[in-house]
């Protein structure tokens, strides 16, 4: 199939209508608690993320960032508190209802988590699994033409349309993370979580991937919630910052005007 230009593709993928920031939160946590082996990792965290916002979650290793993100999608079950994600209390959902909600939320992992032996296109097609159901999205050979075309569009958005037929385990770290972003886009997400999306990349590749990621989310009015150890990424690509220290929220505010020295103190 002919791959359209980036601009044309951006027009083709329906963007969500822009909403006034703060109207209805896409994510609202109340008193979120989680322990492992008696050690409290999250100690009653409250936070809200409005539609269309880009929010960075910062904090030292072990502060609970990844645990919080995993709890938000019920990849981990919280011990207490409520999680309202896209208007639904995810703690009360199970089975198909839970999968339907997850389908509207992308999750980009630090180690991209692609299926190594499958092609890049098959990996992107997986993003449509919950929407389509059945074997048509297991790998690209079984997929419908319109899904293959959409997956190619998503790959084009991350600049990897020419790599579609390659096996995922032949890509570099930066390319793999772009494929993971394309897979999230294939979900047509309302919100995307990213857990240290560039931590495994070198600084230059990390900068490129983060810029691409943040711009794509902004262009399509997708709420972005990401964790990062790069404070410059948090300041450059997020309009809101939340900081955790030992499982407690210690900062929640707009990123503009934040003092770098203050932010660094969170890591001490």
């Amino acid at each position: 199939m002919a791959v359209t230009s980036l601009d044309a593709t951006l027009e083709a993928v329906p963007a969500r209508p822009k909403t006034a920031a703060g109207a209805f939160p896409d994510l609202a946590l109340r008193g979120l608690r989680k322990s492992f082996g008696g050690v409290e990792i999250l100690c009653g965290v409250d936070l809200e993320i409005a539609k269309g916002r880009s929010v960075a979650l910062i904090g030292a290793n072990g502060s609970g960032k990844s645990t919080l993100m995993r709890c938000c999608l019920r990849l981990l079950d919280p011990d207490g508190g409520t999680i309202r994600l896209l208007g639904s209390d995810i703690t009360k959902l199970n089975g198909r209802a839970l999968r339907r909600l997850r389908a509207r939320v992308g999750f980009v992992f630090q180690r991209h988590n692609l299926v190594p032996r499958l092609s890049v296109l098959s990996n992107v097609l997986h993003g449509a699994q919950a929407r389509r159901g059945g074997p048509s999205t297991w790998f690209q050979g079984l997929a419908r033409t319109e899904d293959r075309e959409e997956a190619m569009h998503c790959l084009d958005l991350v600049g990897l349309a020419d790599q579609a037929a390659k096996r995922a385990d032949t890509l570099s770290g930066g390319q793999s993370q772009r494929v993971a972003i394309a897979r999230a886009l294939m979900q047509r997400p309302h919100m995307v979580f990213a857990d240290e999306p560039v931590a495994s990349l070198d600084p230059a590749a990390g900068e490129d991937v983060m810029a691409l990621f943040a711009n794509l989310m902004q262009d399509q009015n997708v709420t972005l919630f990401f964790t990062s150890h790069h404070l410059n990424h948090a300041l450059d690509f997020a309009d809101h910052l939340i900081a955790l220290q030992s499982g407690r929220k210690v900062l929640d505010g707009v990123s503009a005007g934040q003092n770098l020295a203050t932010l660094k103190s969170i890591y001490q």
Partner: protein
Amino acid sequence: MVNQPPDQALGQSPNELALPARLERPGIPAFLVYLLALGFFILALEGSKISISGFVEGLPQMADLFARMVPPDISRIVPIGKALLETFQMALVGTALGVAFSLPLAVLATRRLSPHPAIYYLSRGLISWFRTVPDLVWALFFVVTVGLGPFAGTLALMVDTMGFCGKFFAEAMEETEPGPQEALTALGASPSGVICSAVIPASMPSFINTGLFSLEKATRSSVVLGLVGAGGIGIELKVAMDLFEYPTAATIIVCIFVLVLLVERLSSRLRHRIM
């Protein structure tokens, strides 16, 4: 530091450092277990009636049997060829069916994919049962239940393959990287979607390897199954030996050797190509 002798540089003389023991000294319980194992092995040697003199005395008879087998008689090569083809067909179909049925069984016997612990233990038990009962016993069972012939042999090979592949498929799936499975769960994939999109592709090299080993194993087993009437070339060999037609028996043995060798070579080539 550069010009200092090593002992001064490290702050302690090498003679003062306690070296770990070369071999760990067993405790009294472990020592008793080793002693019991050795005692049992000596009893096993006694029980198996190992006799060097018996072996040496048998050598001339072996030579005599070998001499009677040469030259092989190829006058019955056509029926032998047909029986050989039937043997391979049994092995191929038995393995294919066994692999196909062992895949869902292995999913149920994989701890993190099984829908319930009870189903996990039940599937594991079933696989163990299929594996521990020898294929010759399965053949006897199926000869009684479905009658003499290759169908009984094919069923025996299928069950034996399920025991073999079920165990190794489950272990391969147990060892897969959890990351891609978590990613698919996060994007709303169903459990079957996670299995078919992430677990099976990741386990495929192991599946192919195990499947090809099963075919080799089934080819060797299918030769013996004929001895109990479960089809294949085994019955031809038994009849030839019972009637003292050693040259015909020699032809059958050579044919079996060629078949097994061909299957092993083919499977080895396929393995290298696919992996």
